[in-house]
């Protein structure tokens, strides 16, 4: 089973992201493989280990994307491809989906795996859009692979919905996103890190994909700092826990939240 896993580089979750001079900045905070994508890479590697084949990791982005690609290689992916071109700097979900789909078609995999969302744009939209562009089935928030039927090329998966877990049989090729319950992502091995640091990572541009992208439909005319919560914590004290509890309940009734 040949697998493509799509990843993105993002500022670390601990980054102090803010707006300066009308632009988003995260200071010196490191760029890392999107945390949700670690689960996608883990799922891709497990699929390979169970069902055979190889894993190719792809990312659309400038050179910063190499950080995410190398991390995925260090975890155990066999090859990495970066996709970039000048007009893609402002790509919206639709353009991103078209570009990724073109790269995926070229790689011709059986399975495409993404994380549930990137923690920068937080749109959680690209994977379903890719599935639509490819015309392949889409299943979001997969928590387990139950089995693969070689004959019918059908993968049995479990996905979470808010109301229930749903078991589905998905004919391949298909596009999935992976939920955190799937499995704890593995740490890169020392050998993996060494290999990844030496790997040659080709760059595919729009000409190579035979693609032209339209100007983005969606624009971000403004980013802003959310209003600061002017909160001064009111500390509640008392002689006994009960007295503290009574004062707190009084306050919560006053605030109309009880």
């Amino acid at each position, binding site marked *: 089973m040949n697998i493509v896993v799509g990843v993105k580089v993002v500022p670390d*979750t601990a980054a102090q992201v803010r707006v300066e001079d009308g632009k988003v900045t995260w200071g010196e905070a490191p760029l890392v493989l999107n945390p949700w994508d670690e689960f996608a890479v883990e799922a891709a590697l497990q699929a390979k280990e169970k069902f055979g084949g190889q894993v190719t990791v792809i990312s659309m982005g400038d050179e910063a994307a190499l950080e995410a690609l190398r991390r995925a290689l260090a975890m155990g992916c066999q090859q990495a491809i970066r996709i970039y071109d000048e007009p893609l700097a402002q790509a919206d979900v639709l353009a991103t989906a078209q570009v990724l789909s073109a790269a995926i078609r070229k790689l011709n995999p059986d399975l495409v795996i993404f994380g549930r969302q990137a923690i920068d744009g937080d*749109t959680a939209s690209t994977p*379903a859009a890719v599935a639509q562009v490819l015309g392949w089935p889409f299943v979001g928030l997969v928590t387990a692979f139950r089995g693969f039927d070689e004959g019918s090329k059908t993968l049995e998966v479990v996905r979470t919905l808010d109301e229930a877990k749903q078991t589905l049989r998905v004919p391949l090729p298909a596009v999935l996103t992976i939920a955190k319950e799937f499995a704890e992502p593995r740490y890169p091995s020392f050998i993996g890190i060494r290999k990844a640091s030496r790997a040659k990572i080709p760059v595919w541009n729009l000409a190579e994909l035979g693609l032209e992208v339209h100007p983005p439909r*969606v624009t971000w005319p403004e980013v802003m700092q959310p209003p600061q919560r002017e909160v001064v914590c009111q500390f509640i004290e008392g002689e006994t826990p009960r007295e503290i509890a009574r004062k707190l309940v009084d306050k919560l009734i006053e605030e109309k939240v009880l």
Partner: protein
Amino acid sequence: MSKHVAVVVDHFQGQAPGATWEPFTPARDLAQALGGQVVAVVLAADGQALAQEAKARGADRVLLVEHPSLADYRTGLYGKALAALAQEHDIAVWLFPATTRGKELAAWLAAALGVGLLPDVFEVALADGKVTARRPVYAGKVWARVEAPLPAVVTTRVRSFEAPEPQAVDAAGIEKVDLALEESPVQVVGYEKPEAEGPRLTEARIIVSGGRGVANAPQVPEPCAGISDPKEREKCIAQEGFKMLGELAKALGGALGASRAAVDAGYISYDHQVGQTGKVVSPDLYMAFGISGAIQHQAGMRTSKIIVAINKDPEAPIFKIAHYGIVGDLWEIAPAILEELRERGLVKT
């Protein structure tokens, strides 16, 4: 120019989560600005009740597509039905609640129509023939204004718009639509339903949440006394602590949350996790017991209306965003609050 506003009704086997009706509020304003109607779309095996409720929540018309294969949600199947409706009806803005299904479908539909997608917005309007909206990005550390030309697809952030109160209405305006639907290639084998207990985290008005501090009991609770392995004993203590917080949550008619630290330590399952890599919540009341308040946790709960923090450490960062703070032992404070609620008859049954 297209001019109607469609709201796609989210449901699981005919049951709509609360967030389903929230987009009807901005839909009314957008329809008014466009001089069009609010058109609800119901895709279901049996959707009469949903169609009725959509009318009651303010839809001028309901497009009701009923088909046995629509009993089980599959993204492509539902998406194709919506794309077919888009061909026949003059829709300027498609609205979905930003629930799991809503987000998937919106992304699929926007790609199918080749139009702009504005996900997870907390504010949306029309200006100069465009949809203009605001949404949190970077886990709410930044807000972005986003714009797309008409037609456009929008998902509304859960608990950011108040759903219209249901009105008494008749069944006029419910139109059954026949679509030639193909069977989905994705087959449903079955479901496993969790035991439903109280409201879901993302929809709860009150959340009682616990962190690493839940493991620090002044006295080892009875069931854990015989455990000699310190790690196992700690886990047992924390699980007892979460039981206690769960009781408080239940008494308040709320949901039980947890920090990532508590989940990673194995005290409680991941579906309770609040934060950047868990659930993002915005309840009226968030009570944080023994949670220090890492930036990743704050990203998941900072927009709560009232935050109460209970922590032994007066320097814990959580107090910087809390409205009310108690420096003390959660093992004493949580039962005291529960007793106080019981005595005042404030316990929800």
